[in-house]
Every structure is written in C-alpha cells, then in structure tokens.
C-alpha cells in the first residue's frame, strides 16, 4: 500500500503510466490539444478581465453604440478553424487509422479471445495451432454455458485464463520501420547482429528486453539509420461479451473498446513494458460494474510460458463466437 503525493502526480503530467506503443501518440495528442485550449482560454480570459474592468459603469458611464472594431475576433476564429483542421487531418485521422484499424498479421501477434460477462473477464488462448476450438449454441448447457464443441481437435490445446487474471507476453521483435513494419531485410539483420553482438548473452542474434536497455546512444543511432525499429510482438484481442455491453479499458495501454453482445470486435496494441495493470470495465453493466476489474499482466516470455503451461482447457466458460 502506498500513496502518491500530489507533486509526484504532477511530475507524471496527470497521465497514468504508459505501457503501449501507440499510447505515446495518444498522450502527445492530448497534450497539444490542451496547449491549444489553454492558449485560447488564457487569451480570452485576459481580454475578458480587462474589458470588464475598463468598461465598468463607474469608469465608462456612456456606452459606445458601435463597440469593438477591428479584426481580432475574426482572426481568432480563423485561427481556431485552422488549428482544428490540422489536428484532425494531420493527427487524429491517420493516428486512429494506424492504431485502431491497421491490424498486424495474426501469425505475427499474440492472439486471444477475451470474454466479458457480468461481472468478470476471461481469456482464451488458441494454443500452438493458432486456432480456437469451435462453439455451437446447441451445446449450451449449465455446464457448458457457451456451447464449446468438446470433441473439436482445435480445442485440445486451447488454454483458458482464470477469471480476472489475463496475461500477455512481452516478446521483443525487430521490424523494418521504413517498410511499414515489415520483417527485417537480410541487410538489416546483419546490422542488427553487429549491434547486438556485445550484449547478446544467449547468442540468438536478437536483443531481449533486458539487453535492449544496455544499448548506447550510438547503438540506437546505428539501428535507426538502418531503419530498424526495436519493438514488441503486438497483441490482438477479440472482444466479446456473453450478456450486456461492457467496455475493455486498460489505462496503461490507452485503449478503450466496447464489448458488444453478438459481435466479436478485435483490438490490437503493442505492449512496451512488463507489469501489472488494471482492466477497467468502462461501460455501465449492472450493479457489479464498479468491481468488474481484472488484472492485465504483461509478462516476460518465460513467465508467460510458465503461466500458460499451468492453465487447462475447459469447455466451460470462455469466449463465445458469433457465426
């Protein structure tokens, strides 16, 4: 138990700790909008106070029929229009398209199905085959509320998280930044190997999370020049719900997405640090809404594998599909 002081929080800039790649952009975007708002607000307030003071009745007993002349107001309005247009066209639309709609390939991502219900969360992982077991409504029963087809071979290696305890691995990967996040070319692989050599304890030609922290500024520059981005394996979550609308919100990831009944909605993001975060349910879903939290744990790959190995397959529970 600990508590953060006001000052500590202020240092953090009133934004909670960040754990995703696109979250940087979200924070930055929120920041610049607030600068714009502050500029407008301060400007107008200065004018406002001055006008109230200067034109109070005792100082100015006779009002002027015409009032303000000049183009200050028009200019301010035009400035607002321009800034809004820039924010919209240069930032919001492309950033949203990238962060929300541009999905990585499922084969290059950690995939899971997350199902919400009053008032809990549960995840299902497809296992090694990458395929979720089938479900059919006709198998719905008390024991098997979502109608899993138990005999489906694809289901045999599926794994189910305990309620409210969701894990994803933080797997370091390298990508070609210039070529729209494609895998590295052979040349780039060579550069990476060179840079990695001194740090690469397990000799896999890669940089794992701890090793990355040791890189010098010079190393970073080399990688950047080669167009290599050090990043992590993205996560794709298919969100569904059994009953009412819930909303999957992980503050640290800067991600909110409603879980709609009858739909399976995918979200994707790239985690950037290990840690324990909260999943908040952000849509009113009944009397347990306030306590419908869950742990969202970003593990190191080893921890994740260990955790997953302890999980079992079970027909009961897990995410429904809507075919």
């Amino acid at each position, binding site marked *: 138990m600990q508590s953060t002081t006001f000052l500590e929080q202020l240092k953090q800039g009133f934004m909670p700790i960040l754990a995703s790649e696109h979250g940087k952009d979200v924070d930055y975007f929120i920041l610049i909008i607030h600068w714009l708002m502050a500029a407008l607000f301060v400007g107008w307030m200065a004018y406002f106070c001055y006008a109230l003071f200067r*034109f109070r009745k005792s100082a100015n007993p006779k009002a002027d029929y015409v009032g303000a002349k000049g183009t200050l107001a028009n200019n301010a309005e035009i400035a607002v229009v321009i800034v*809004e247009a820039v924010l919209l066209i240069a930032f919001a639309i492309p950033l949203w398209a990238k962060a929300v709609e541009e999905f990585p390939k499922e084969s290059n991502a950690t995939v899971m199905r997350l199902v919400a219900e009053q008032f809990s969360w549960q995840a299902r992982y497809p296992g090694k085959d990458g395929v979720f077991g089938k479900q059919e409504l006709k198998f719905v029963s008390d024991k098997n509320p979502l109608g899993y087809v138990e005999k489906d071979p694809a289901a045999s290696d599926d794994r189910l998280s305990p309620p409210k305890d969701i894990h994803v691995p933080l797997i370091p990967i390298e990508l070609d930044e210039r070529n729209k996040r494609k895998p590295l070319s052979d040349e780039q692989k060579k550069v990476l190997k060179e840079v990695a050599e001194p740090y690469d304890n397990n000799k896999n030609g890669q940089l794992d999370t701890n090793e990355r922290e040791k890189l010098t500024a010079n190393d970073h520059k080399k990688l950047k020049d080669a167009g290599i981005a050090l990043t992590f394996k993205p996560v794709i979550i298919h969100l569904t719900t059994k009953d009412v609308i819930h909303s999957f919100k992980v503050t640290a990831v800067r991600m909110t997405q409603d879980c709609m009944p009858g739909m399976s909605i995918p979200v994707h993001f790239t985690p950037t640090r290990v840690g324990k975060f909260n999943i908040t349910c952000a849509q009113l879903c009944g009397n347990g809404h306030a306590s419908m939290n869950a742990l969202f744990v970003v593990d190191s790959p080893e921890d994740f594998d260990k955790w997953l190995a302890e999980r079992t397959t079970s027909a009961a529970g897990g995410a429904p599909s809507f075919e």
Partner: protein
Amino acid sequence: MQSTTTTTTLDTHDHAPHHDPGFLRSYVFSTDHKVIGIQYGFTALMFLLFGFLLVMCMRWQIAKPGVPIPLVSGLLESLLGDVAKGGVMSPDLYNSFGAMHGTIMVFLAIVPLAFAAFGNFVVPLQIGAVDMAFPRVNMVSYQCFAGGGVVMFVSFFIPGGAAQAGWTSYSPLATIVPTHGQTFWLIGMVLLITSSLLGAVNFIATVIQLRAPGMTWMRMPFFVWTQFVTAFILLLAFPPLEAAGILQLVDKVLGASFFLPTGLVVSGKLYDVSGGGSPLLWQHLFWFLGHPEVYVLILPAMGVVSEIIACNTRKPLWGYKSLVYSVLAVGFVSFIVWAHHMYLTGMGTKISTFFQTTTMIISIPSVIILTCLFMSLWGGSIRFNTPMLFALAFLPMFGIGGLTGLPLGFNFSDLHLHDSYYVIAHFHYVVAPGTIFALFAGVYFWYPKMTGRYMSETLGKIHFWGSLIGMNLVFMPMFFQGLYGMSRRMSDGGATYALSNAANEGVVTALTGTVIKMNVFITHAAFLLLLAQIPFIINVFMSMFNGKKVESDNPWQATTLDWQTPTPPPHGNFTKEIVVHRGPYEYSVPGHPTDFTPQNAPEPKLVK
C-alpha cells in the same frame, strides 16, 4: 416610451375576460402562456433541486463508500427498503440515482426550465404576441410533462426501484435489469417527448405566425432565435428517440428483441428471447436525439445570456447577424454529429472520420457565438447586477466546457478519455455552471416582470459567489481524475481500482491516493454548492412578498417588447397596439434622449 417611468398595474376588471375564471382555470388548467411558463418553471426548479439531492447522495457514496449517508439514511431506508439497507447506498440504488439524476436534470429540469418556462413566458412577449398560437395545446403539453414527471418520480418507490441503466438506457442492460423501473422510465419518456413535441409545434407556429407588425426576422431578439432553433431540434430529433423508446418498451414488456442479439447468456442461462436484434441500433437512435439534445440545453441559455449582456452593457450585441447564422448552423449540424458518443463501439475509420469532421465543424459556430458575446463587452457601460454576474460567469464556464469537448471530439484522444470523469467534467461545465448559471441569470432578470418586485441583490450576490466557487471546486478536479483514468458510474468511487486496495498490490496504474482523496474534496465542495443555493431559495420566495417594488414597467430599461407591457402582464399581454420600428438592441443610439430605444417606440426627437 410611456410605460418606462410608471408602473401600470392593471385593474383586472378592465382587461381580463368578463368573468372571473376561478382558481382551477387561472392556475391549474390555465391556457395563458405566462401562467403555463410559471408552472413549468416552478416544477422544473423543484426537479432541479431533487436532481441535486439525488447526486448529493451519490457524492457521499463516492467519497465514503459503504458509510451510511448522514441525515437522510433513516429516511432512505424507510422509503426505499432493502436497496438502502442501513442507510448505505447499494450499487443498485447508486445506479438508480445516477440514471435518474441524468434523466431528471436533462428532461425534467433543464429542458422545461430553459425551453418551456422561459420560452413560454418570454417569447410571446418578445415578439409582441397576445399568447401562444395554440393555447390549449400549450396546456396539454404542460400536463403531459407533469404526467411524465409523476411517472418518473413514482418509479423510485416501486419494488426494485427506478431505472438503473444510466440516462442513456443502453440495451441489453436496460432490458435485462430485473426492475420495472425501466418500464416506468420508458413510459415517462414517451410522455415527456410528447410534451416537448407539442411544445415545439406551438413555439414554431407562434414565432412564425404571431410576430407583431414590423417584427421582421432580423428584428427578433436573439433569445427568440435560440428558442426557435431549439424548437426545431426538439421537433425533429425527439421522434426517433420516441420510436426507440417504443421499441425498447416492446422488448421490455412483450419480450421482443429489437435490441437483443441472438445467443445472450445471462447468469449462465441462455436468455429466452428470439434474438436477432442490435444493441447498436438503440445507441444510434438514442444519440440521434442525445446530441441535438445537448444543444437544446445550451441554446436557450445562450439566448438568455445575450439578452442580459446587451441590456447591462447598454450597447447593441456585437455581430447580431453572425449570432443568428451561427445558431442556425448549430441547429443544422447538430443532427449529424451524434456518433461521436460511439467512437469506441467498434466503428471504422471512414465513418468516425465523418463524425469527427462534423464535430469539429459544429464547434466553430459555438466559437463564433462566444466570440460575439465577448466582443459585445467592448465599449459598454457595464452594470454588475446579479443577473449580469451570472450571465458573465456563463462565458468562461461554457468556454471551459466547450473547449474540453474538443479532446473528446477526436476519436484518438477519446480512446483514453471515453467514459472517464473527464467526460463528466466536460459536460457538467457546460450544463451546470453554464446552463444553470444562465437560467439563474434569467430568473433574476425576469423576476421583476413576473412579480413586480426585484429579487434581493445581497442574497443574489452571495448565491452567485457561492455557486461560482462551488461549481469550480466540484468539477475542475474531475478533469484530473478523468485524465488519470478514473471511470464514471462507479458506485464505489473507484475504490476497486485504488492503490490502497490490497488486490492492487503491484498494479502500477491503480488510482493514486490523490485521485481518491479528490472524491472527498469534491463531495465537500458539492456540499458548499448546496449551501450556496439556500439564499436563492429564500430569495425566490421572500422577494415575492417583500422584495423591492419595481419603479417602472421597464426596470432594467431594456429595449425588447417583453418590457413594454404592464407588470405583471395581463391576459392578452399588451394594452396598446404594438408596432415594431427597429432592431432588438438599440441601446445608446447616438443622439437619442435615453440610452435605450424600445423596439416599439416611435421615432424619437433627436437631441443635439
């Protein structure tokens, strides 16, 4: 300018109808727009207070989850039973209060006060009409409203309690929640919508048909314009919600599934409906009204503020024409921005780009309106009476609320801010220190016309400063709570996510002590805000009997026609033929003998 220096108190026998209509006809079943306006106003103020008291209970629960509410715990338990066991709010009760706070504030307090009450009392006077175009319809629309209010109110006391699915009443939750409160809510809404529709038809017809000779469109006071546009919004945006309400009622009562998809599993059982519906459809129909509705809340407020600012700066409004065009633009565009409440329902980039763009477009006329009002101050001779203080405070408060709409309006930042306290802070800044302040201003401003007496300035100023400070202390911290990740509609005030909660050991983004402590601070501030309303309540009632009498029919020396009538205006409003000669805000016209020239005054002799 006859009636500017003397009070014309009318002898009822001269001007009222030939026979005394009796108490019921004059006060309960009246068809006089002024009486109906006052009925609306009074009922709405009661609901405003009631809505505030509901949220005070919620604030207590947020600050001190699980602790019995002081003062009223016994009352709550005896009235509501198990949901308030031991005077502690259960989550069910919290959800009921939350849903009803939103519903009551929006549909039973602000709309009736801003639109129906002020609109009824002031609009016919300002356009020089004898009454509304359809006085009997006017009466029926008040009765529908009162009926809706009663249904909503009664729903608290039925088994299971009032609606629990938020003011937005999203299906499937609204359908699945096992209380008939939702059914009451829907029936109440259908009545309220009917009332608003009748009112809207009446307002529009009145403005179009009953303007006095010479009252051209561009000579109408800005307040009339705002009411006119508001009426159009109500007329065309409400019916789809009525349709949606009927569909949800069929879901709820007859077991249909318009908004329920196939295969819902509720508490481990397949939900017994045919399925095939769409929860998104409800959201679309709701927000098709929901967004225009917020302009219904703000436009009349802007109208009130403009009247008061023009009068108390003693100069014309700056940019009357831009104001009119802006308000028309807001009205139009407000119909095509609704899905900015739905960015995170899984929408694609194309459609959300469309709605972001319209959302940004609609902020521009708002900016223009505010700019015009700010510029109107320049060169004025500003009188700081109570109505003016509230009107002035409206400007920055609405500014804060409106500006914080921008980060919500971009889907990319909404990704973080959606359904957090940032949203709560955003819209409360617009509706509470925004609209409510404008409405207070209106009450102080038109009270002398209604009663022939001023409200007390001293009590008024206490009310003003108390409210201004209180409101800001309540809502400003919520922005920070929201940015920090605190979600709305949390019956435990976020305690589940607090760092201090043992279950959050090691969770790095749990809500910090500061965020949680802000809850307590806000609740204290809300209590201060409540205290600050006491002088107002006293003022409203006491001034009726011992307020300072007005010394003329036009105590603020205003130009619009509402001040060119006897005080209070008789049945039929005007005692003389009204002909309008000029625009609405001819203050301080150079060369005129007084610093105001009423719209109906014949051309005065110029002084050198």
